[in-house]
């Protein structure tokens, strides 16, 4: 059993309470809406790009601490990445939170989410923003974690 503090403390609580990337990316080249039917949470992710490089990511909406912190940190790590790299990061992040992979290939900031594997019911919270941004980049209309 992971100590709860491992999951919530420091980075997660900090980013949940004071997200740096709340808002709308301008210009808005991609937009995605994510919905978690389990808790009613909704998130809107907007992305600016220059040629194939992501230059800005913002999110808005209401969510729990895990989904808010995950969205905020995702927005940070995606800047400077190509669309293909973003998808690769998501694959790695997803493996991490479902307990199939480790954090060695991921940006250090995402490693904090390894604690989520101890809470399988919360995996959807941690991945909502990621599902949403990938769907936006794929030009899907709407995503859900269901």
């Amino acid at each position, binding site marked *: *059993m992971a100590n*709860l503090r491992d999951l*919530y*403390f420091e980075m997660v*609580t900090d980013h*949940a*309470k004071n997200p740096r990337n709340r808002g709308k990316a301008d210009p808005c080249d991609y937009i995605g809406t994510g919905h978690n039917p*389990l*808790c*009613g*949470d*909704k998130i809107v992710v907007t992305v600016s790009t220059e040629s194939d490089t992501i230059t800005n990511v913002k999110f808005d909406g*209401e*969510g*729990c*601490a*895990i989904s808010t912190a995950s969205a905020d940190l995702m927005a940070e790590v995606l800047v400077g990445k190509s669309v293909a790299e973003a998808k690769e990061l998501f694959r790695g992040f997803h493996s991490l939170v479902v307990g199939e992979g480790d954090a060695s290939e991921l940006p250090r900031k995402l490693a904090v989410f390894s604690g989520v594997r101890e*809470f399988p*019911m*919360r995996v959807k*919270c941690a991945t909502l923003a990621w599902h949403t941004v990938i769907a936006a980049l794929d030009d899907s209309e709407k995503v859900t974690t269901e």
Partner: protein
Amino acid sequence: MVLEQIIADSFPALQQTINGKRLVYLDSAATTQKPQCVIDAVSHYYEHDNANIHRGVHTLSQRATQQFEQARATIAGLLGAPRPEEIIFVRGATEAINLVAQAWARPRLVQGDEILITEMEHHSNIVPWQLVCEQTGAVLKVAPILDDGTLDMNAYKDLLTPDVAIVAIAHVSNAIGTINPIKELCELAKKVGAITVVDGAQAAGHMHVDVNDIDCDFYAISGHKMFGPTGIGCLFGKHTLLEEMDPWQGGGDMILSVSFEETIWNDVPFKFEAGTPNIAGAIGLGAAAQFIEELGYDSMVQHEQELLVYGRATLTAIDGVELIGAAPQNVGVIAFTVNGVHPHDVGTILDNSGVAIRTGNHCAQPLMKRFGLTATCRASLSIYNTTEDIDALASGINESIRLLG
């Protein structure tokens, strides 16, 4: 205290630790824990009497049939149904309501008929009626609730026009625990000639239900919310109505004779019980009904009401906690929010202390919308809970505020 201990000891799943802490189970509105007598009844059936019912002439089949029908009689007795054959075994309250919707309402309703529900219904008492509306052209009407979580009686009366063919109402709200004045609501509905369908899923595990006294046409229960197994429940229906209705599923057990030219339905209740039923579940539910009878609704109500008062007072004393829809008549459901902390985070932090509550929209999204929320926390009480459980809840809530509030 002694009684509490006896009760707690008869629920084996409660005798465990979660994350190193004593399990505090405050999610009985989702499903109750099962007493040993119910677990034993299910095991005993499989270990000694397992056979199909209503067919075989051999001993095991006779035993299984006898126990299955005994369970039906016990449940009829518990609910005050005048005749055991007025009890139909189904998977749960959801299936019971769907049965009424498809077998009674769908063939009878026409364009312009109205179905009246309330704002506090579980999705299982909304969606089956929306389907019927699509199928028949009937219109769904919704009686609003007041801020204190009670039904707006004036609005309900205004909505009860002669166009209303069906009134479908929860006896008790699953999300906020409000006990509706169901007898009065049914009386008013009957005056305009409406058929009354009561969703009793949240009532029968907490308070005395007398379908004869309520004088409703249909009453739905779920076994697992009243100490019985999952996957079994009952529909009570007045005999005259059940006789008028055609079956809603075809198969074995629901027919008297079958030829390719003509099939003759079996009698009530069997014509609504196609296929081999959940025999073990029915026997388990019978044991649960007996458990409730032995305990007595009076002592259950007294215990849960005392705990509700204590729980509301304890939670209200926490700065940042707001109770949602705390109606005076309530079975023991405490719905609340914690300022600045998402319900899911409250739920995870409580689980870390061994405290199980439900968080989310509680399958009642229109009700959440009514209160301007997407989710709440819900602590729901049962006979095995104690004031220590409430104290553990309060301490976990304080922890969540300290971490995230």
